[in-house]
C-alpha cells in the first residue's frame, strides 16, 4: 500500500473544506477523485503534497504518518504534484523548469540526463522547446512541462490536478494517453479531474467527492455505468 488518507479534516480559515475524508491509493494504481467544483478535490491534493496544513487526520505514506512533514520534504519521500493551473516557472526555460524537478535529489547530476531523456520521450514537444521560456508555451505544452517536471523528482506517487483543464479536446486525449503511459512505468497516480468521462476511463478506482465528503468509492468502470453518476458527472449528452 502506498498512500492512505485517514479521516482527513482541512480548514480554510473557519471554513471546513475537507470533512473527514479517507482514501486509499494502492501501488501501481490510477485512482481518480471526481466531483463538482468546490467539492474539495484540489484541497485534497494540496494537503497530500503539504501545501495546505492538516487540521486533523492522518496521511500515511509508505507506512509513515507524513501529515506534519513540510511540503518540500514530502518530495524527498516520493510524492510529486503537477499543480492545478500547471504552475510552471514562466521565466525559466523548459530545461531549467525540468531541472528544478531535480532540485532536491541527492545524486541529481547522475540522474539528470537519464530522466530528461525519459521526459523527452514522453513529450517530444518539450525537447523541441528546451531553451524557450516556460511562460511562452501554449497551455497544452505547459501542462506537459508541469507533468514532466513532476516526473523529474522520480515520484512514487504522482498527484495530477485537473490536467485537462482549459485544453482543447485533442490535447486532452493526448494528455490522458500519456498519463496511462506514465502509470505503466510503475508510477502510482492520484488524479483529480473535472472531465469524469476521461478520468474514469483511465483510472482503476475512483472516489466521488461532494462538499468535503466522500460519497462513493468504486471501481472506475462501475461508476461509468452507474446511472446516478452518469446523471451528475457525465451528463447525458456526453459524446
Amino acid at each position: 500500500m502506498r498512500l492512505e488518507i485517514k479521516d482527513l479534516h482541512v480548514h480554510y480559515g473557519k471554513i471546513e473544506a475537507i470533512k473527514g475524508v479517507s482514501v486509499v491509493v494502492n501501488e501501481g494504481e490510477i485512482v481518480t477523485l471526481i466531483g463538482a467544483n468546490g467539492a474539495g478535490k484540489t484541497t485534497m491534493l494540496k494537503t497530500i503534497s503539504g501545501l495546505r496544513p492538516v487540521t486533523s487526520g492522518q496521511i500515511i505514506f509508505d507506512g509513515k504518518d507524513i501529515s506534519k512533514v513540510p511540503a518540500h520534504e514530502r518530495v524527498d519521500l516520493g510524492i510529486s504534484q503537477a499543480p492545478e493551473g500547471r504552475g510552471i516557472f514562466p521565466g525559466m526555460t523548459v530545461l531549467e523548469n525540468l531541472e528544478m524537478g531535480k532540485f532536491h535529489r541527492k545524486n541529481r547530476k547522475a540522474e539528470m540526463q537519464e530522466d530528461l531523456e525519459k521526459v523527452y520521450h514522453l513529450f517530444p514537444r518539450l525537447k523541441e522547446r528546451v531553451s524557450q521560456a516556460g511562460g511562452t508555451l501554449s497551455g497544452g505544452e505547459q501542462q506537459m512541462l508541469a507533468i514532466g517536471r513532476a516526473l523529474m523528482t522520480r515520484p512514487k506517487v504522482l498527484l495530477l490536478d485537473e490536467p485537462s483543464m482549459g485544453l482543447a479536446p485533442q490535447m486532452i486525449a493526448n494528455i490522458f494517453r500519456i498519463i496511462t503511459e506514465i502509470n505503466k512505468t510503475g508510477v502510482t497516480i492520484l488524479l483529480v479531474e473535472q472531465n469524469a468521462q476521461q478520468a474514469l476511463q483511465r483510472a482503476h478506482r475512483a472516489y466521488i467527492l461532494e462538499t468535503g465528503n466522500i460519497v462513493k468509492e468504486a471501481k472506475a468502470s462501475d461508476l461509468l455505468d452507474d446511472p446516478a453518476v452518469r446523471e451528475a458527472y457525465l451528463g447525458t449528452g456526453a459524446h
Partner: protein
Amino acid sequence: MAKIGKTLLKLDNVTMKFGGVTALNGVNLEVKEGEILALIGPNGAGKTTVFNVITGVYKQTSGIVNFDGISLGNQKRYQVTALGVARTFQNIRLWGDMTALENVITATDVHKKSGLVGALFGLPRARREEAENRERAMEILRFIGIDEYSDRLAKNLPYGVQRRLEIARALGTSPKLVLLDEPAAGFNPAEKVELAATIKKVRDAGYTVLLIEHDMSLIMGISDRVVVLDFGTKIADDIPSVVQNDPRVIEAYLGVPADAS
C-alpha cells in the same frame, strides 16, 4: 427563439501582434443581433484575444472593430462597456468582498448619471437611481436564478453560483452584446446542461451572445453559428453541424473523433 437581425459587431481584418508573436491574423468576424455565436479553437488560438480586442483591453495592431455602427478603437474600456458590450472572465473575477447584489448594482451604475455630489447630499436623482439600480439588479439576479444569494459575499458563493453571477453582472451593464469567456469551465455535465438553458434564456431576452467554450456538446446544443480559430486565423465559420464535420477543424481542434472510447 429570437429573430436574428442586422450585424451588431463586425471585426474587419483584425490583426493583433505582441512583440513578434501574431495572436490574431486578419480575422473577420460578424455577430448578428439576437444570435448565439460560439468561438472555438485550440488553446492559444487567439479566442480570448478577440474578446480583449473587442473590450478595449488591447488595441488591435490593424483592422477595424465596428460595434453597432461605431468604430471601437479609441474608446477606453469603460466606454466600450457603456456602448453596450459586456463580458465575463475565464477565471472568475468577481468583487469578492461585495455581496452578489452589490456586484450587479455596481455594473448597473454604468448608465447612471448621478455623481459624487449627489451621493454625498442624497439628491433626488441619486436616490432615485439608487432605487432603480437595486431593483434592476434584483431583477437580473432573479432572471439568472440566483436571487436567493443576493446578500451573500461573492467570495463565499458556491463555484457554480459565482459563474452565474459573472453573467448576471455582465447583464447589469444592460449590454447589447454579451461576451462569455468559458462560462462552463469547471462545470460537470449536469451543470453544463443547466447553463446552456440559461444562455439560451439570456439570448431570448434580447441579448446577443458571443461565447468561447471548449465543450463541444454545449456548443452544438445552443449556438446558431460557430467560428473556429487556429493560430490566430479563422478556419471555419458556419452552422454547428457543418463545422463539426469540417476536416480542417477536426485536424486542428477536435482530433480523431471518439479516440477515447
